[in-house]
């Protein structure tokens, strides 16, 4: 059987859905439809969607018999608020005329425009948050962000922690992340922002370009940051930008799949990183030991597994207590 292109599958599915909708099928037609549906799982999927679209379109009954599609035609920009209102009123009266009770209008525009929605993760948790505009945020461990979308901009506040933003392109509605007074502005790109206690804010750009501003820093000109580079913004010094390799970027974003990657970091610094992902602390009493270096990829919320692996490779001991694992000679 020739494999049809997806669009052709959709087209045929639409034909079948229209046929089914027009009245009972003859036995021949039914057999032919059955054969078509069985030929390829995508046929069945497209047919299901076509039927769903028809069911969805039935909601147009709410417009009532006076429905005039022309009244919908001109709507272009969402910020044409007056026109929007009249259109909404029209739709509402249509709904009442048709005697359809609907909750769709229960969410007023004003409320939506200023509504802030917040998302957070517990220690050791990551979470993917798809946003209304097609952008996707991945929140790392122990993080919190607030989403405030208006018609002019897509506003995010990173309250704490770390997040990767895969931003859907929209030049007219910039995507702006605020982290402790620094703003990172993008139109369509992929970047992460890290805001940890007692550490400078970090921005890592995976794709595209962003602009960073810190209005409260005197003479702080906006800094442009392109793909494969990192910006470090200490509280009292200018923003510093550092190029990084593509591999480093992926390595650093491994937290999205629950992994941490170290390349020659000290044990001490690795222990501090693990502390973000688990309430089980890694204790290293010996200062010399703390300067030993580690390399490898580890499961981020498993400090015990990490400690045991390190102990094994360096010939050390790892003793597990209730809420800590102690590495010693």
């Amino acid at each position: 059987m020739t494999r049809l292109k997806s669009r052709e599958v959709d087209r045929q599915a639409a034909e079948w859905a229209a046929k089914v909708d027009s009245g009972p099928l003859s036995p021949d037609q039914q057999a032919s439809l059955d054969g078509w549906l069985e030929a390829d799982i995508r046929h069945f999927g497209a047919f299901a969607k076509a039927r769903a679209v028809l069911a969805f379109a039935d909601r147009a009954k709410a417009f009532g018999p006076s429905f005039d599609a022309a009244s919908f035609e001109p709507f272009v920009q969402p910020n044409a608020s007056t026109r929007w209102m009249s259109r909404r009123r029209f739709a509402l009266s249509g709904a009442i005329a048709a005697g359809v009770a609907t909750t769709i209008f229960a969410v007023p525009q004003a409320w939506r425009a200023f509504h802030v929605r917040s998302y957070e993760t517990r220690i050791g948790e990551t979470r993917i948050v798809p946003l209304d505009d097609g952008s996707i945020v991945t929140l790392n461990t122990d993080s919190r962000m607030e989403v405030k979308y208006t018609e002019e901009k897509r506003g995010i506040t990173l309250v704490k922690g770390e997040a990767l933003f895969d931003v859907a392109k929209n030049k007219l509605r910039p995507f702006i992340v605020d982290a402790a007074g620094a703003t990172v502005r993008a139109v369509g790109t992929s970047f992460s922002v890290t805001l940890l206690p007692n550490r400078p804010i970090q921005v890592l750009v995976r794709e595209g370009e962003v602009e960073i501003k810190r209005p409260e820093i005197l003479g702080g000109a906006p800094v442009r940051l392109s793909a494969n580079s990192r910006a470090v913004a200490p509280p009292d010094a200018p923003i510093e930008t550092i190029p990084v390799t593509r591999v480093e970027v992926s390595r650093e974003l491994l937290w999205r799949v629950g992994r941490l990657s170290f390349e020659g970091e000290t044990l001490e610094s690795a222990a501090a990183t693990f502390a973000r992902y688990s309430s089980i602390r890694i204790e290293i009493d010996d200062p010399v030991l703390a300067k030993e270096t580690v390399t490898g990829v580890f499961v981020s919320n498993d400090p015990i597994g990490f400690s045991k692996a390190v102990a094994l490779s360096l010939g050390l001991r790892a003793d597990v207590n209730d809420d800590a694992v102690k590495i010693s000679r």
Partner: protein
Amino acid sequence: MGWVSDDRAAWLASHILPHEPALRAWLRHKRVVDLDVDDIVQETYARIAALDIVSNIREPKRYLFQTAYSIIAAHFRRLRVVSISATADLDQLSLMAPEASPEQELIYRDELRELGAALASLPSACRQAFTLRRISGLSQRETAQEMHISEKTVEKYMAKSVHLLMETFGRGGKVTSHASRKQKELIAPYDKTEEPGG
């Protein structure tokens, strides 16, 4: 494969269709090499439409994403040789589905408005046939009489309308620059994947 009952179609319309744009955005962002977003979406619909019951699905959006993910994962498991970039992509996709959808109301926000605009963007004969059939509730025969065309033609207009609406809703877009954008999409192959680093 089975059948798509009216109930199931209505359930899909309420719980899956509104999330298809988000699913597509997610899949596109992940750039899964060698897999076509349209194919994954169609197969995802098939899997969900074929379920015995759906009443136990509490978080349809999450379920939708998980189903799509499992289809991709199964595809890679079937391959003997998986390129490193493909596994990296799968890694990226990760097992995590997006969180449940408290944005439900937001997604429904402009439902009727979008529907109205989508209908407005249909070619006029299609729109007239569709309006008579679906909004005025005429039968196919009555619609044919009203429009002075054959029943066969009414069916053709309905099929075309459904196809265009499938495009509009699935790709979720703003219905604004609808006509021109659709034209472009129909010509350009949708979402060609690119080799990372290539």
